[in-house]
């Protein structure tokens, strides 16, 4: 499967490994849409299971955007990773399910998904400052007024 992808998009894969029985492919961020399209149309990966991010602070570029795809027909799963500083193309054009997951990543990590149809916060209040799941955001000691004293 990785070989088939490499044949079509040789520049897209920057690395890959099989660990704990799971295939991980590192993808060039600019090619992510083409690769997702390839998996959906040509490899029968009908489902996007989840999109999330890992903050590798203080490394730069710090955000790994992680896509988990599933093929129901072939009973396979694959993990795609793209490392970005702050922005990546939205996968909603390929998988509609990406919509809320990307909103969540935007809300909690501050990664912008360009071309997202509904780029709002999803978990936190709309006027919240900062992105809580970043490694440099404190876990405790943060006070929010809930709009009582304006």
């Amino acid at each position, binding site marked *: 499967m990785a070989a088939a992808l490499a044949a079509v998009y040789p520049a897209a894969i920057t690395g890959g490994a099989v660990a704990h029985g799971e295939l991980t492919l590192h993808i060039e961020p600019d090619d992510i849409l083409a690769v997702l399209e390839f998996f959906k149309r040509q490899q029968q990966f009908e*489902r996007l299971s989840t999109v999330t991010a890992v903050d590798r602070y203080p490394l730069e570029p710090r955000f790994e955007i992680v896509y988990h795809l599933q093929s129901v027909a072939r009973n396979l799963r694959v*993990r795609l990773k793209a490392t970005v500083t702050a922005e990546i193309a939205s996968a909603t054009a390929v998988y509609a399910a990406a919509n809320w997951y990307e909103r969540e990543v935007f809300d909690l990590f501050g990664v912008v998904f360009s071309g997202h149809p509904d780029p709002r916060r999803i978990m936190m209040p709309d006027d919240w400052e900062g992105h809580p799941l970043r490694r440099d955001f404190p876990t405790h000691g943060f006070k929010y007024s809930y709009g009582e004293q304006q």
Partner: protein
Amino acid sequence: MSETITEPLLHQEPEAGATRRMTLNMGPQHPSTHGVLRVVLELDGEFIEKARPEIGYLHTGIEKQCEALNWQQVITLTDRVDYLANLSNNLCYSLAVEKLLGLEVPPKAQFLRVLLAELTRINSHLVWLGTHALDLGAMTMFFLTFREREDLLRIFEMFSGQRLMTSYIRPGGLALDPPRGWEKPVRAFLEDFPSKIDEYESLLNANPIWLQRTQGIGILPVEEMLEIGITGPLIRAAGIPLDARKMTPYSSYEKFDFKVPTETGNDVFARYTVRMAEMRESLKIVRQALEGMPEGPTRAEAHRVVLPEREKMKTQMEALIYHFKIVTEGIAVPEGEVFQVVESPRGELGYYVVSDGSGKPLRVHMRTPSFGNLQGLPNLVEKRQISDSIAIMGSLDFVLGDCDR
């Protein structure tokens, strides 16, 4: 103040032949949203033109908190993700950590995990059935299902000391050995419960109100369901046997003989039928686990990771040292990442766990079924009547704690 807001609305004359649209705020306190879901509905008469679910009212930052706790402490948080299926969450997290550690769990612990996961499924489906029927006006169901649920909660309490937040499944095995005589209440439940399912069905299957409000309601093409991320009983009611227990067996599910019930109706009624059949299949699995229960320990032999037995700790120096080190420092998990999927009562539950080799997780992401299923709500309710949306929301069986985390 109020005049300035209402005035434009009062003077808004609809165009000839057109109807005025109305925006209605459903929730976050609406009883049929089972928690704190808010749906902004745009209505044309009784029909929903547009639905926009607003979630996040129960966002408690569990994923953030996971990064601040050490590996064993996270178990207590997984309980609170989906509070109706906490053992499924315990199991999923434990399996992920065990994969990273390369730990083999003894067969008895695996069988007990399967038994508890299936009892959890029944427990969760009972809550769903009671509240779903209550939403549609069948009040008796609620009392009946909660009567049986009480038996299950007693069983969980007997195992773990807790009715809801059990934290019973831990990386490496189980928290405690099952108490003496634990088979008796489980066996009694197995004897009792099939007739109870018949009782529920006798109340609903011939009930004309129930049938009218569920049959042919909430149909969505199956391709669209896969596209939007719907899993669990909903996708199985559309004819796709998508079930992690069969597709990627975990915790020795491959040793059990059971079917994955599917339906082709794809409506609210089909989802009800699938869940009822699932309860019967779960009973089969529980019975097999009980009959074939292997002998042996319930915890893996791994000194650095799993707490030693209490008796050993009191008599052996090494055991005491390891106990002290695990409790004070936590366990070290090798660097790596795992995406572990289990079949929770609501659908595909996945834990994406990343370790950087330290005593705390670098990232714990929960791919929760409620979040994925709720995303499909607009597709399911748009162009339908408000009253149908209550039935459809009930059939989704979401838990907001599971959704918002």
